[in-house]
């Protein structure tokens, strides 16, 4: 082969790779620079921007071992160390302080739920408006297996902290790790049961049916204190306290692992790191699922159901698996959240939560894991702290006075703001902030759901 031929063949790819890295560096470096320039010193901003630029652009990281993972690994490292450097962080303009570690836990749990929903909506293209049902299922599983709710039974398995393994506290008390597995499996089963009759419906009908299930679930939770004579959910009072996570006294004494998160002095950090591990697990599973045979079948169904069926993809089974997988992660997240908040209440499971999680998936970019993580982190931060901070800033700096004539309570507008985000995303960037390339093509060019002879009006 002629050397020039080889060179010519090589160059286009090389150019693409270079531009790609330059773009990445610019995208990462510019905001870092701007944020620092506004808040801190110019010099520091320049240094950080340079570091980001060098790290992402200059060396051919991709040729090194682990090179592909350098960005991912740095992000994970930053996330893991967050509780340590968080107190020293500067204040952002408008948004105020960085989220506290406590908010971080909630953010991570919502990210996990968003990733679960992403499997259903993003991969398989089934609009699920009742995802909160799975979250509720997981939370109640945790409540059943790790609280004093069933006080006529006394059962301890790998008991937690203060209860010890041989304690005589009434109720079922299992270690959280088992409860998480149970919650996942149980919720996946519920997903299959819900999915079996409904998944044969298409598009918007499926959305409505899932919405129906999502509405029925809190009502069952609310009325479940007398379900055929049994007190299943303890009604509107909810079930609390739920046991905290922990490794039990045996492991505590032997290896030094925390026996009980709540009584540990670094309790919030422990919750944070555990949530982070769960999110990483979800990300790993999402990636592997996406690239598996099943994942490709999901994408095929999403793009063209008829064609997929013609190619031999079993529609019902594949869709049910998508549902079960999404439910699995929703259930684990729900159980962990219940354990974190140490209680579960029917009022937590209303439709707006479903839409809230859907909003994360859509804003971030359906089908793209990194997009969904970004969307989930940003929106749950807004919901937890961000909107209150922004409101405080607006009121303090006279923005509210100038625009509205009086101070305003920004969190009052939460649902409206999420509505606006949904509408604007759908109108101007339906593929989300960080789209997967396939999804983008579908939204830009349309899918075969439309008739081929479609004309523009």
């Amino acid at each position, binding site marked *: 082969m002629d050397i020039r031929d080889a060179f010519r063949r090589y160059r286009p790819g090389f150019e693409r790779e270079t531009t790609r890295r330059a773009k990445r560096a610019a995208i990462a470096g510019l905001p870092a620079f701007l944020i620092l320039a506004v808040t801190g010193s110019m010099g520091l901003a320049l240094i950080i921007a340079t570091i980001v630029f060098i790290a992402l652009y200059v060396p051919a990281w991709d040729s090194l071992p682990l090179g592909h993972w350098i960005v991912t690994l740095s992000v994970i490292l930053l996330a893991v160390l967050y509780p340590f450097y968080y107190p020293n962080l500067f204040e952002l303009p408008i948004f105020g302080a960085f989220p506290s570690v406590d908010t971080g836990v909630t953010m991570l749990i919502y990210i996990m739920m968003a990733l679960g929903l992403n499997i259903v909506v993003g991969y398989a293209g089934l609009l699920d408006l009742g995802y909160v049902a799975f979250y509720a299922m997981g939370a109640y599983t945790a409540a059943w297996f790790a609280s004093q709710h069933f006080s006529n039974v006394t059962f301890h398995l790998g008991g937690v902290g203060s209860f010890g393994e041989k304690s005589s506290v009434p109720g079922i008390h299992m270690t959280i790790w088992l409860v998480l597995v149970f919650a996942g499996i149980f919720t996946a089963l519920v997903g299959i049961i819900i999915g079996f*009759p409904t998944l044969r419906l298409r598009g918007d009908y499926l959305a409505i*049916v899932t919405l129906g299930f999502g*509405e*029925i679930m809190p009502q069952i939770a609310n009325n479940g204190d007398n379900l055929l004579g049994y007190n299943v959910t303890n009604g509107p009072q909810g079930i609390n306290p739920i046991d905290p996570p922990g490794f039990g006294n045996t492991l505590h004494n032997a290896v030094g692992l925390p026996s009980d998160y709540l009584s540990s002095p670094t309790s919030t950090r422990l919750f944070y790191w555990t949530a982070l591990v769960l999110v990483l697990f979800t990300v790993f599973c999402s990636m592997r699922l996406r690239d598996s045979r099943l994942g490709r079948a999901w994408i095929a169904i999403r793009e063209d159901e008829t064609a997929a069926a013609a190619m031999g993809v079993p529609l019902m089974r594949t869709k049910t698996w998508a549902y079960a997988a999404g439910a699995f992660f929703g259930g684990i997240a729900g159980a962990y959240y219940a354990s974190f908040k140490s209680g579960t209440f029917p009022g937590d499971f209303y439709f707006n939560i479903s839409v809230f999680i859907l909003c994360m998936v859509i804003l971030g970019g359906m089908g793209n894991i990194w997009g969904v993580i970004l969307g989930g982190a940003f929106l749950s931060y807004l919901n937890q702290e961000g909107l209150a901070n922004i409101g405080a800033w607006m009121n303090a700096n006279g923005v509210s006075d100038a625009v509205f004539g009086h101070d305003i309570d920004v969190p009052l507008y*939460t*649902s409206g703001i*999420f*509505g606006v985000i949904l509408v604007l995303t*759908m109108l101007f960037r339906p593929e989300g902030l960080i789209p997967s390339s396939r999804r983008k093509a579908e939204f830009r060019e349309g899918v075969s759901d439309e008739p081929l002879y479609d*004309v523009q009006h």
Partner: protein
Amino acid sequence: MATEQARIRVRPGYRPDVLSMIGLTLVGVVALWLVVNFIKEPADFYNLFLIGMTNGAVYGLVAIGYSLVYGILELINFAHGDVFMLGGMLVATLTTSWALESKSGGTLWLFILLMLLIAMAFCATINTTIELLAYRRLRNAPRLAPLITAIGMSFILQNIGLVWKGARPTSVPDILPHGTVFTLGGIPYTWNRFIVILFTVPVLTALVWLVQRTRHGKAMRATAQDREAAAMMGISVNRTISFTFFIAGCLAGAAALLYALYITNIRYTEGFRVGLIAFTAAVLGGIGNLPGAVLGGLVIGFVESFNNGLGWHAPGSDWTQSIIFGILILILVFRPEGLLGERTPEGA
């Protein structure tokens, strides 16, 4: 549209005869339950029947709005219920600010009629604006895109309602007369309930006339059947769709007036609740089918009132919402075309 037909027909693994037997058994059990209840407490039964009919008429009016829009765009207009809620809030404001509880007789009716027109215009404006701003740009997007937009719009409108009237229910002065129109089994049917029927029937007649007999109606039906072909025949598709949203909004306004005056309070979440019930009614009657929507509304109204009130083995009001959604799920699974619908949801 032909593919749509094929899709619904292909439902592998299901044998329709088994299905219809399950369905008939369910209906039979419900009928038996009603009969037993009727024999035990006839007076209660009549009373609940009248309540159910009144509520059902309101649900029917809202349901027609869903049905019209679904018929023409195949879009579940989630925001419709919230448009209805805002209309109700406007009625609450007007009733208080015009001090209608101190008026009576002819003046009162004049004001109610004026309020009806204002509420209809208000809701129609909101509905058309939503269509113009949000749905029109998404005509050729995948079907989930407008649906998600509609959910977003519903949240925005709900938030507007929350900011406007606060989180607590707003009470509406009880201005309708309470005299008896007729008695059924010893239960008086009062004017404030009868008015709902009195408004619903002419509105429905006018609507059917509009859709069946006028040029606009013809354009609507044509657009619902095949948008491209309609455009080729010289029908302005966008204007027709706008007109449909206008009509749907008018109906929501009328329903809002009746609901607010009859229930005498309104809350920002009410739109979502009534919207879902009405959507269920529309699906139950066969979405895209106007008499079906009213029939569905009545059925849901009866289900609600009987379930809330009957004494013998009724699940009670705690479960009403679940039962209504249960019906929705059963209908969608067993008979997606609804009671009166055809196999495909194609217009009125």
